[in-house]
């Protein structure tokens, strides 16, 4: 051994090193890399990729460009002048903003526990998409979707062809015959997918609240929450819609908003406060937590057995983004007749429907495959129903469920049924 001498150690003293100045960056890019440099460095310099196998998109594409790690590395590459925004535009479409990467990141898990810090990946994706909009590089289908939303004031979830009901004239169609007042201290915010597409959900919710004696009204003029717009990068539009809704709440003396949909809950508790600061002093209640409380307090009795074998799909925005995972399980265990085969919430960090973050608009084939895989997991449990708590997940999951022979239902619809309510409405177009 040791026959070949090692080269002599290099003892040249290191020069004083100045940080590299970003080269040839426009104002928009410079602001972006300055804002996200530190967050990106936290990932880039460790680069361990625990996020990769959790990511629902990456599980399907197996393309490293679509990993959260790449989303952060690109920030450094932009800064160093290696990549332009155009080079990565399509990569950032590959994200449902589920937040699985953030909770799985060791930097979040180990450091965040102590400092409540979190590796911000969802915000980076949104910021990049906003930059694409600013630079006129936004994706075609998103552009059309948001233009229509801007015109209609609701997302065109039923399409615009053949006189589909859209706009303010139809925003409360779902509530027909339920006698819900307009205004009041508490209002129920009904997102577009529920108001126009799966109307069984708001009907079930409203009737549960009536039965439990919870007073609430509807908005004078409800526009889209603006959440999907900001998820796709249309920040100005999102803020304009938010402004309208907040003004509407003020006019009616609203103090409390019941969010019946997880995406709305994220927007009302994160985006709206960031838009309006202290002005935003509304209480935001998530419906699942409220219903669990009503059942627990004996205000809502579940009497009718539902003799089905079910598993629960943790909606990403409840479980991964907001940490709401106990209440839905508590509700399912309270429904008589139900056999509940649970999969723990941490395992479900890697599950998703693919329905969020604008993915179904630009990459419908990925959404379909993500949902197919989710139903495949449910099939392994030999259940006959998959229960979700996010209306946006239920469309792609139901489509996959038809092929898998598994029914997909919303947890609130099951609660209503078990409470003896005739729900009405429809579960699809």
């Amino acid at each position, binding site marked *: 051994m040791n026959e070949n001498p090692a080269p002599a150690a290099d*003892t040249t003293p290191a020069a004083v090193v100045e940080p590299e100045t970003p080269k040839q960056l426009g104002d928009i890019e410079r602001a972006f890399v300055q804002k996200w440099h530190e967050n990106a460095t*936290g990932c880039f*310099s460790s680069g361990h990729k625990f996020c990769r196998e959790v990511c629902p998109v990456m599980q399907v594409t197996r*393309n490293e460009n679509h990993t959260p790690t*790449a989303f952060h590395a690109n920030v*450094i590459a932009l800064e160093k002048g290696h990549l332009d925004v155009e*080079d990565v535009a399509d990569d950032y479409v590959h994200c449902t903003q589920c937040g699985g990467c953030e909770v799985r990141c*060791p930097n979040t898990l*180990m450091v965040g526990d102590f400092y409540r810090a979190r590796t911000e990946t969802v915000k980076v994706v949104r910021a990049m998409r906003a930059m694409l909009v600013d630079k006129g590089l936004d994706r075609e289908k998103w552009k059309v979707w948001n233009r229509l939303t801007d015109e209609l004031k609701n997302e065109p979830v039923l399409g615009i062809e053949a006189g589909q009901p859209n706009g303010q004239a139809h925003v409360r169609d779902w509530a027909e015959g339920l006698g819900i007042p307009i205004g009041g201290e508490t209002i129920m915010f009904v997102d577009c997918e529920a108001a126009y597409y799966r109307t069984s959900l708001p009907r079930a919710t409203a009737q549960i609240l009536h039965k439990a004696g919870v007073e609430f009204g509807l908005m004078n003029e409800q526009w889209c929450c603006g959440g999907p717009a900001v998820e796709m990068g249309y920040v100005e539009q999102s803020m304009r819609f938010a402004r309208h809704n907040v003004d509407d709440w003020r006019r009616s003396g609203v103090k409390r908003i019941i969010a019946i949909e997880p995406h709305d809950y994220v927007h009302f508790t994160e985006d709206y406060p960031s838009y309006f600061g202290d002005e935003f002093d509304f209480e935001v209640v998530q419906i699942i937590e409220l219903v669990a409380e009503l059942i627990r307090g004996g205000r809502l009795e579940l009497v009718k057995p539902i003799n089905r074998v079910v598993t629960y799909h943790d909606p990403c925005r409840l479980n991964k983004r907001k940490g709401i995972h106990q209440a839905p399980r508590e509700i399912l265990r309270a429904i008589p007749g139900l056999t509940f085969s649970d999969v723990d919430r941490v395992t479900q960090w890697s599950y998703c429907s693919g329905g969020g973050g604008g993915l179904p608009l630009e990459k419908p084939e990925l959404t379909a495959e993500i949902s197919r895989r989710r139903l495949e997991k449910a099939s392994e449990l030999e259940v006959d129903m998959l229960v979700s708590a996010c209306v946006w997940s239920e469309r792609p999951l139901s489509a996959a469920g038809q092929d898998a022979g598994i029914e997909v239902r919303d947890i609130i619809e099951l609660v209503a049924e078990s409470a003896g309510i005739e729900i009405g409405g429809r579960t699809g177009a």
Partner: protein
Amino acid sequence: MTAISIPDKVIDRLQEILGEDGAVLTDKASRFNRARVPAPFPVHRWDEFVPDVVVLPRTTEHVSRIVKLANECKVPVVPRAGGTGLADGAVPMRGGILVDVKRMDQIKETDLVNNTVTVGPGINLQTLNRSLKPHGVIYPDDPASYACALVGGRIGTSGLSLLGSRYGHTRDLVISFEIVLPTGEVIEVGEGGGRKIRKSSTGFHLKQLFMGHQGTLGIVTEATLELVPRAETEFAAFFRFEDYHTAYRTFAKIAKSGLATLAGAMLFDPEKVAFLRRDDEAYIVQPEWVKAVCAAALMGTRAEVEPASKIVMELGRGLGGKYIGDEIAAGDWAARHDRYANPLHGRDGAGKVIPMSWHCEDAAIPYSEVPEVLRKWHEIARRYIERYDIFDDWGAFAYTNGGHKPWGDLLLEIDMGLWEDRMDEESWQTFVSLKREIAQVAIDHGGSMSACHGATRAGDAELVPTEMGASWEVIKTIKRALDPNNIMNPGKQSLDQAYQDEGAR
């Protein structure tokens, strides 16, 4: 390197071979995102390590045809699985075709009669084990990167498992594998016989030749892996010590205990404890007298582990160790994978907090040499820290190294903080020189400079001939014979010497 330097016709033929949209990637984002691994990286030279084209094959036939094409056109080929290695095995040194095997992630056969599972190289260890769970079996290859490491990379680096003392390491747990040679032929290597045979005396045993090949001898396209019964229970104990030497002696007592359920034993030196105390956000406060830690973990049936745990407690306390408590012991052991990525900062000489990335040396050192190697390593670290404000000493830990044989050599790892954000060529070369000095000490003490990451980085790579000694000639002959055109991951481990010698003969 940013401009694509291989001919269009090669790209066209790759398209023809793969026949799928999005499987041949020539865009800059695809290439820049496959230039690095988690190890410290010369960011200022990023574009030097960018491949010309990235391919995402799905089958062995795809890989074979890609490699044949590369060999015919004399274009470099670099295989990449997870890209989570801590050396540069998956980093392209000379552009070429990067073969990213992540789409080869199928479970092809689960054989519960012969206790094997056959998979593609792109499957992740945790994902695999989740799917095996209903069967009561596990593939117990357990690196710190368990949540992101892929089977192909584990074979490529001959990885170390944290449970190696009980179940063996990758080299023991992979029964056989299929590999595409640098000329495109597909062969099966194992212990001999069919792909599910664990022991044979026929012919040469090629499995270990290709194990840890670092992408320089081919591309693994399928592997048949060991399935073991899931442990019924596990037990972890951490003991605190007033001095390193007592902890070190306790480690030996545990390692030599003969307990078959010993999954691993671990040792933290005073510099490590001081660093955790100083800068680890997840550190649970320990009294000042704690200067070293020795830990052990057991896995197996209750009938074995419960009585063995009593022996471990006696051995751990025998020389004066103080048990750390159930909650911390179980919690720290359970968090062993997540600790891999921490922390993200260190200190400069004046004690100022600096964002730093983590660099670790992973030498294999005989037990007897550990104190002296550590003394020299920390001395080297001190010298560099005094001179350059980009380094920090994050201490050392040791781990049982031999598969099923915990009593001999150790994985000895010194962790260094490195201020990557401030890297220029001069400071990068200083880092390389630091690495080289550390590696040389390992070799001088009869060790190996890399127990598990691979000697593929600058600083290590040039010492491979030194460590190999007279066998280096055999290695060069093998490399030349299998890869006549030096297309497989060229520039790694000084293997270019295999070709430089040709003219001289």
